[in-house]
């Protein structure tokens, strides 16, 4: 297949990045392909670090050959390139051998991830591989221009490469993988069309909790995207597609202690953020203070939410306040 042809196919497929940011894949590929450099890198990001997201693990376990094929397509499309599969420690241990076997003599190497959640952000991935400080870089320049070792770098998620393979083979049917967990009967990873609503996905996977739509009190709520930064939706808000990394986590209202839940989120961010920029470092500190005291000052939270969402240095800070704001607005 010709290089332009695959990019055209990616464009037609409307595939977007499955790491959460949903950036058009064809655009990213085009940028790296067109960048002028003596060397380019392709990184398959398998750092999957957010609670409630386990679809990359599922893909690596069941379809590693598709992932490798997707990477090979990228290698064929982007000149002077070599590829790295950046893997969570446990994924490396579990799937490393198999992946190496599939790679054979292709210019693809495996790299064991260093650091935590933030080390999945694409510029931090480059920092990690270079052995630098695990903090996001200033953008621009974007990773597609100045990435690993200062070279144009294509960073795509495991699932994205899986679908690149499907697109190349003409087998892509506009689906994605959903990680469903929480208070459900059939926890697991499901592949459904990208435009299905959460309600339909829960019904189809037989995970929709029994609930009384006429009752005043709600029986459950859902976290969408990821288990830490995902938005909170109520049963009457599920008529919308899943966003972010497409995790769907169900919480039974009766069984869930909201303060404990918020504590788990805030402890996660408190540990995982890099403390580089003011809004995220200080904002998370103040949210933790509120959650520790079990007392939310709604005005302060709203201001911190606005500040972090708009002015944080990287995606972690921009997303982190969403669930707290939602719980505060919808459930407290």
């Amino acid at each position: 297949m010709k290089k332009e042809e695959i990019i055209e196919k990616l464009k037609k497929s409307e595939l977007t990045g499955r790491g959460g940011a949903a950036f058009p894949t064809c655009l990213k590929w085009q940028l790296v392909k067109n960048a002028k450099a003596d060397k380019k890198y392709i990184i398959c990001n398998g750092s999957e670090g957010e609670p409630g997201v386990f679809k990359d693990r599922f893909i690596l376990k069941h379809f590693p050959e598709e992932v490798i094929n997707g990477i090979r397509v990228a290698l064929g499309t982007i000149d002077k390139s070599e590829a790295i599969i950046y893997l969570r420690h446990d994924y490396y241990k579990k799937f490393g051998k198999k992946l190496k076997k599939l790679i054979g003599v292709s210019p693809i190497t495996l790299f064991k991830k260093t650091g935590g959640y933030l080390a999945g952000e694409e510029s931090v991935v480059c920092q990690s591989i270079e052995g630098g400080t695990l903090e996001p870089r200033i953008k621009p320049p974007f990773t597609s221009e100045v990435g690993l070792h200062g070279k144009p770098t294509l960073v795509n998620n495991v699932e994205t490469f899986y679908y690149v393979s499907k697109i190349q083979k003409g087998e892509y049917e506009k689906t994605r993988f959903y990680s469903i967990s929480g208070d459900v009967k059939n926890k697991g990873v499901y592949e459904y069309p990208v435009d299905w609503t959460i309600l339909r996905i829960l019904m189809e996977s037989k995970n929709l909790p029994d609930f009384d739509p006429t009752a005043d009190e709600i029986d459950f709520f859902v976290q969408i995207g990821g288990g830490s930064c995902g938005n909170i939706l109520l049963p009457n808000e599920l008529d919308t597609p899943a966003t972010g990394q497409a995790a769907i986590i169900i919480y039974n209202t009766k069984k869930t202690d909201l303060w404990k839940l918020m504590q788990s989120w805030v402890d996660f961010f408190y540990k995982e953020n890099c403390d580089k920029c003011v809004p995220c470092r200080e904002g998370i500190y103040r949210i933790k203070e509120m959650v520790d005291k079990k007392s939310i000052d709604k005005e302060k939270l709203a201001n911190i939410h606005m500040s972090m969402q708009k002015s944080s240095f990287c995606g972690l800070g921009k997303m982190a306040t969403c669930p707290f704001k939602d719980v505060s607005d919808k459930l407290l």
Partner: protein
Amino acid sequence: MKYFKIKINGKEVKVKQGQTVLEVARENGINIPALCYHPDLKIKANCRLCIVEIKGKKGVHTSCSTHVEPDMEIITDSDVIKGIRKTNLELIASEHKEECGDCIKQFDCTILKLSKECDVELNRFEDRKKNKKSLKFGPSVEFDASKCIDCRNCIEVCNKQSVGFFELQEKNGMKEVVPTKDKDHDCIYCGQCILHCPVGAIEAMGEFKEVEEPLQQKDKTVVFQFAPSIRTSIGEEFGMDYGEVVTDHIVGAIKALGVKHVFDTSVGADFTTYEEAKEYVENLESGCLPCISSCCPSWVKFIEFNYPEFIPHIATTRSPQIILGGLIKTYWAEKMKIDPKNIVVVSVMPCTAKKYEIRRKENKVRGMNPVDQVLTTRELAFLLKHHKIDLKKIKPVSADNPLGVSSGAGVIYGASGGVAESVLRTACSLAGNKNPKIDFEEVRGMEEIKVAKVNICGKSVKMAVINGIGAARRVLEEMKKDPCKYDGLEVMACPGGCVGGGGQPIPTTAEIRKKRAESLYSIDKKKKLRTAHENPIVKEIYEKYLTDEKKIKEVCHTSYRKKKREVKI
């Protein structure tokens, strides 16, 4: 260079390609607050105060890291921007304990100023660092962790100095800026961290009480001296232009504090020049090279701690303030019939390391410290403001005799290259060069490493003039491999030399350092007397007082030793 137009807050402005939005805004008088931004340092975009909106682009953008593009339309003060900026400032204020009463920044505090401009509630969030300790780095620098906003400027500038005394450490889940405990790193007291701290969390150790008390005691004679570089910098603290020459204003203002005797450290510099030139000529003859300059105490400390193998090469000549202090407590005390024990010498210096230098045992004169207290430029300005003395309006007065008139060579000591140029002027004369050269343009300016080739005693001498310790380390590493690379080194720890010293007014930037230095050279150019050895007071004191080697050694020379880490944390 490509130029184009952009709009800021509806106003059309012409910009150069490559400029950032923040630079353009400030050039056009539009104030965008930015705390972690400093033109000497890399863009970090940590503080998130300099955010702006750009028409056609989603979200908000930090102006420090955003480059201008043709036809860009920037909004710096929308309600969204104001709201976010207010919250971010409130969060920053929660890291910074407000103890304004005894803070030297009280007349010029960025946080207080911004909090008024941005309608900020300073105590909206409780001070999270209020119990953090203040740490002292020797007698020079104090780091008050309860005021630190973790912008990391100090880490970067200290690494640029290749000193690496600051680092990030994780404590209870929060990363914070701390001085390292690593025994292989020690502070050299240069104070560059202070100049680059936006909120006064790092400051010089000001001993105002020790300076003011003797002024009230009848049996004490207080004598002030002021460094060469102060005369083109302290005016800035009183709203004067960068680099404005205020030599006699300084004397007048110090006298307004009640001080009777004010001498000029540039006279001390003339003695340093004469002694160091003699050392140069002797070493050139004996072949004991390279000869390394000794008047920057941070540089000396840097060698003693990091490169002890170079100690034998450091000139033993004392620095200008130490020699002048020594002369005040010996020659002048005898002349005035004052018991030197009752003399309190206070130096006003551009430097925090000078506070360390006066406490070095090797610098004593007859068991006394030649200088008792050092005030930085900023500290003198603070003291004057505290006493409601406006330097700008004060009646100018000349420095006192006999130690008040220096050569032009003594004045240029305040700029990188000044010591080398002064020493070369005198050394060429001492060596008997015909028509000795006066102007050594090749060692002037802000370049990190400058090289001069001069003929002295029939020998070609290659001298390197270096400012900034990072560059100095690189040169020392080269010298380890090639010991004959240079015959002499002048090193100043601070960028641009003392005009960029750690005790100088804030802000200090490349542009400001340049202006301060240029003014020093303009003073030198106007002087008739431009060489140290021709200064009448130098001649007189060598004729009447410094008549034997013992006395010269006592007042003018010192020694050095290998050092282990001194700062205890």
